[in-house]
């Protein structure tokens, strides 16, 4: 741990309210909330930021972020964000979408926001499942994965395979920044037994900051964040974290997919 430069602000953030979140135990939505709020504080953009709350587990974010909010219809957050950003270019506009919201019902809105290089920031929480509605198959559900609508495992012959949103968007000329990070702590084995590293979390934190910087530079910024949903995966929390690295990250490789402004190198 000591080798890593660990700069995390401890204590109350101006960009957060005092409300406790509704997120389930083990869920990374709370982590992302903290990382985004920290970035807003550090970049001093809270007073000019409008969050578009999308339908899914992040829909109650207006209770947590101390900024203006617009709660969008299911899947439409990038369109609502674009509409506001175009008439108020001085604002910072971002949304946190789930995989169902962004990659299924709202794929058109996301793709066209990217294609036009709309200067907004989109965070996609990919937990391979519809969380808020109780664990149905998402476009990102892994082949063979059991959900309430794939009780015998996702059958690729019927439903196709997982949709890789970062790969899709990076293939679109327009999107300025596309990155996939992970919010899950990673289990490592050491001589002393199991240890957990947060190095991916620190990378996620950097990605969140970069995503706001890219918007300020006038580009579309997209960060996909691999996450767990231990409740709907019906898995103990630490098994779920392991699942992210043993299975999800193999189908959804972490890394920078596109970085037009070179913010990763700064």
């Amino acid at each position: 741990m000591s080798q890593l430069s660990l700069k995390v602000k401890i204590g109350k953030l101006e960009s957060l309210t005092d409300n406790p979140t509704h997120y389930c135990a083990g869920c990374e939505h709370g982590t992302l909330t903290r990382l985004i709020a920290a970035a807003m504080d550090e970049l001093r953009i809270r007073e000019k930021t409008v969050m578009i709350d999308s339908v899914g587990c992040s829909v109650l974010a207006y209770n947590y972020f101390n900024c203006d909010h617009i709660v969008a219809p299911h899947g439409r957050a990038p369109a609502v964000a674009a509409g506001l950003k175009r008439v108020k270019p001085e604002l910072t506009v971002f949304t946190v979408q789930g995989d169902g919201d962004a990659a299924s019902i709202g794929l058109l809105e996301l793709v066209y926001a990217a294609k036009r290089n709309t200067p907004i920031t989109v965070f996609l929480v990919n937990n391979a499942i519809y969380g808020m509605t109780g664990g149905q198959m998402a476009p990102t559900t892994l082949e063979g994965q059991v959900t309430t609508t794939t009780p015998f495992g996702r059958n690729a012959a019927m439903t196709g395979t997982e949709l890789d949103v970062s790969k899709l968007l990076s293939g679109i000329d327009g999107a300025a920044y596309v990155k996939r990070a992970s919010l899950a702590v990673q289990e490592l084995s050491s001589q002393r037994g199991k240890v957990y590293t947060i190095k991916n979390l620190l990378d996620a934190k950097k990605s969140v900051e970069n995503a706001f910087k890219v918007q300020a530079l006038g580009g579309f910024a997209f960060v996909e964040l691999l996450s767990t949903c231990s409740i709907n995966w019906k898995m103990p929390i630490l098994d779920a974290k392991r699942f992210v690295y043993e299975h999800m990250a193999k189908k959804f490789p972490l890394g920078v997919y596109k970085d037009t402004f070179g913010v990763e190198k700064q």
Partner: protein
Amino acid sequence: MSKQRVYLKGNEAVAYGALEAGLNAYFAYPITPSSEIPETLAKEFGNKKYPEYKYFLQAASELEAINMVLGAASGGVRAMTATSSPGFSLKQEGLSYAAGMELPFLVVDICRAGPGLGNLGPEQSDYFQATKGGGHGNYRLFVLAPASVQEMALFPRIGFDLAFKYRNPTLILGDAFTGQLKEDVEFPEFTPPKYDVSSWAATGAKGRGPHILNSLELDYQKHYKHVGRIFEKYKLAEANEVRFESYLTEDAEKVIVAFGIVSRIAKGAINKLRSKGVKVGLFRPITLWPFPKLALRKLASEGKQFLDVELNTGQMYEDVKLAVGDGVTVDFLGKWGGIVPTEAEIESKLRHLEVLAA
């Protein structure tokens, strides 16, 4: 454009009318027979005559367009989109959210024949969807029904005013006829009013608490109150914003009820019948919501009988029946599929009713 007489299509007129009313952002999706609206607004983008007009975008779908309008309206600016019936069906999601979020903006629906793809001819068959809150949940839109190109040009001013006064979307419900019709129009001098949006618009929480534009409320009691408050606004609008036109109704024994382009044809039939000594008149709702039910009830209380004429199978007819109450005759003449009734057809329907009555 001000004061000058110009010869325009209805669709062009509503576009220029919106610009004269201070339009700030337009989000387009093409659909016949409404496409001259985005085409006109694309052409005028950057024209220094309209300094408030700052953004035009052709969206990738009707849904994307209406949701961009939601975003822009949340910023407190004058935003607008236009469509035709199949597209208007797709807009219902956004309109329901907008009513719940209390967002002011303008939508134009140039109604064509349905259901489904129907055809490109005029119909008034979006009446139910327009006036009853066509999406899910409890809400209404303000609905203005222009009968001429001149009204297409002026209704955006009224539309934005209503929208910002009540924080609710306004719909201008035209049809393929009023959209494609070409007539002389005037744009009287107009300075768009400044609307105070400082108490609600999402412009960044600087020096104030957050503004949250939201239709979600998980607490049933709070949601009951939220929707109840919206309906208190609607009651106020029903008392103050009703618009209609009465033409020769005072001594009329029979009153034709018609809106939009049909009212123009009805006037022709009325003039012919009047010249033959038949006492007929016209009642034209201009606001389809709020519907002028008290004015109609008053006419009914004077013993008049009614003929409702529409470009559909009988939609406003239900509101007319409700307004006049039991025991009052309301006959119906409907045309659909893009077919418009002729003056002669309206005349003969009235004559036929007279024979029956005798």
